[in-house]
């Protein structure tokens, strides 16, 4: 009885929001602070994008992507194009993907589906984490020491192959990790279901588990590619640079141009024309990486819509 009475006594004003309360003041201050911080944290992205857009975007034209860059000189009106660098970036990244995707997916499958949590798999997981933290320049120096300076690959010195190998080292941990984690997300019930209808382990993985985990794995791979495509340091030590189109049967065994190294080289030149070209290349590179990231988002949405 008394209880119903007291509740009925609660008036509107008792329930009203009081901005003067300590907890409400505190809450508002915190909300405001976090909003500021989150804005500050996207500021660099906005600045970089708009700066590159303004400096580089204005120079985009057809000859930029069809022509070769001109060697440095102070008498140039234009430093030419970045056609071979775009192509080179595609080639080197493709080589890296060809190496890193099968190895990484295979390693991830081993970790998630075959290993039993023993010392070997723990060692691999630990190693993968360490590798993902290794600075990219170390990967470059390492490939330089093992492959470039020893000319171990068909006598090739600086080459697209060496560049691809260096980038694949950077992609590998991401691919292994996303595969491992993507597969671990797949419910054990599905595996049991497949084994319960007489599927072998191989069929279970190739027909049920891998397809189910396709989206996270593909997303991870695309992000790894995007990261590799923008790397500079490993390529300076391995692929070097070239002012010519990659051509002939030896194309992959010779130095090859890439967008990131072109930017690095030309931005440091004292000539205006070269600097301008570096800006144009920056714009193209940023756009390529942005597109790749958008593609990975689309992949995620596309497949999740298809599933439900």
């Amino acid at each position, binding site marked *: 009885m008394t209880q119903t009475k007291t509740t009925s006594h609660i008036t509107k004003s008792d329930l009203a929001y009081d901005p003067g309360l300590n907890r409400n003041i505190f809450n508002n201050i915190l909300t405001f602070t976090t909003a500021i911080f989150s804005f500050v944290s996207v500021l660099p992205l906005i600045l970089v994008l708009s700066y590159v857009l303004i400096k580089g975007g204005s120079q985009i034209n057809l000859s930029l992507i069809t022509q070769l860059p001109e060697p440095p000189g102070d008498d140039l009106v234009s430093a030419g194009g970045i056609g071979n660098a775009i192509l080179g970036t595609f080639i080197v990244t493709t080589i890296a993907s060809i190496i890193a995707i099968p190895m990484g997916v295979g390693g991830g499958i081993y970790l998630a589906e075959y290993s*039993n949590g023993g010392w070997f798999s723990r060692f691999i997981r630990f190693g993968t984490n360490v590798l993902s933290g290794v600075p990219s320049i170390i990967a470059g120096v390492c490939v330089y020491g093992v492959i470039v300076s020893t000319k171990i690959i068909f006598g090739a010195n600086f080459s697209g192959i060496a560049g691809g190998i260096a980038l694949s080292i950077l992609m590998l941990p991401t691919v292994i990790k996303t595969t491992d984690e993507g597969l671990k997300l797949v*419910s054990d*019930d*599905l*595996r*049991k*279901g*497949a*084994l*319960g*209808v*007489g*599927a*072998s382990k191989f*069929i279970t993985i190739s*027909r*049920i588990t891998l*397809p*189910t985990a396709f989206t996270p794995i593909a997303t991870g791979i695309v992000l790894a590619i995007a990261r590799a495509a923008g790397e500079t340091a490993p390529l300076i030590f391995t692929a070097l640079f070239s002012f010519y189109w990659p051509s002939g049967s030896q194309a992959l065994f010779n130095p090859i141009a890439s967008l990131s190294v072109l930017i690095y080289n030309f931005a440091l030149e004292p000539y205006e024309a070269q600097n301008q070209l570096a800006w144009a290349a920056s714009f193209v590179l940023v756009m390529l990486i942005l597109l790749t990231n958008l593609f990975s988002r689309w992949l995620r949405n596309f497949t999740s819509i298809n*599933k*439900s």
Partner: protein
Amino acid sequence: MKGSSQTKQSDREITISLQNVTISYGNSEAVRNIYCDIPRGKVTALIGPSGCGKSTILRSLNRMNDLIQGCSLTGRVLFEGADIYDPKVDPVEVRRRIGMVFQQPNPFPKSIYENIAFGARINGYTGNLDELVETSLKKAAVWDECKDKLNESGCSLSGGQQQRLCIARTIAIQPDVILMDEPCSALDPISTLKIEETMHELKKNFTIIIVTHNMQQALRVSDMTAFYNAEKLETGSGGKVGYLVEFNKTDKIFNSPTQKATQDYISGKFG
């Protein structure tokens, strides 16, 4: 003798025979000294309080326990007279003859059609797949609900329909035996009834072994019932080990059990 089979079936009618089976997880025994002869073409129910090892026993019948680290088995499990734990035996082959339906419906994230066709394909089925899909879905009593949306995802069905899809998927590999581990525990009463009806149809063609915690269900669907119980380990460590108390025709178990534990369990005194 406690735990031994009390039925007098001739060997011809026995499809699976457990002979002094003991199953352990790591160093602790989960079930001990099971003798049990499971008749062909009948529905056999395994009942008992939870944790007494019903699922463990069921999984041992098609070597699903192989997937669990540290699970080991001693004794013999004979399927049509052959020891399925013989080192020469391929567990994949065993599971093709002895299919399994799980507690949680687990359709593959593929179309309804592919859910059924998957098992058949990997088993080298050469007949007409469309026909197989239709007959399997019919036998599992979901054809009417699925026939217009065979290309939709199996996950878009309701829980009860999913479970019948999983049963259809198992039927499609044309096994001899179907194991079911509490197939209705995640389902509503109406879906449960449908699945029970399905089982009555299925036993014309298959041997069914079903684990259930629902005694009414055991009474409704099964011909034979095995009652398992768990007792404290002698070591006094607080661990329990399961054993077979009584195995007999279902009406005997429910109307005139010979063991007091069975009587107590079916009258609801514990469990």
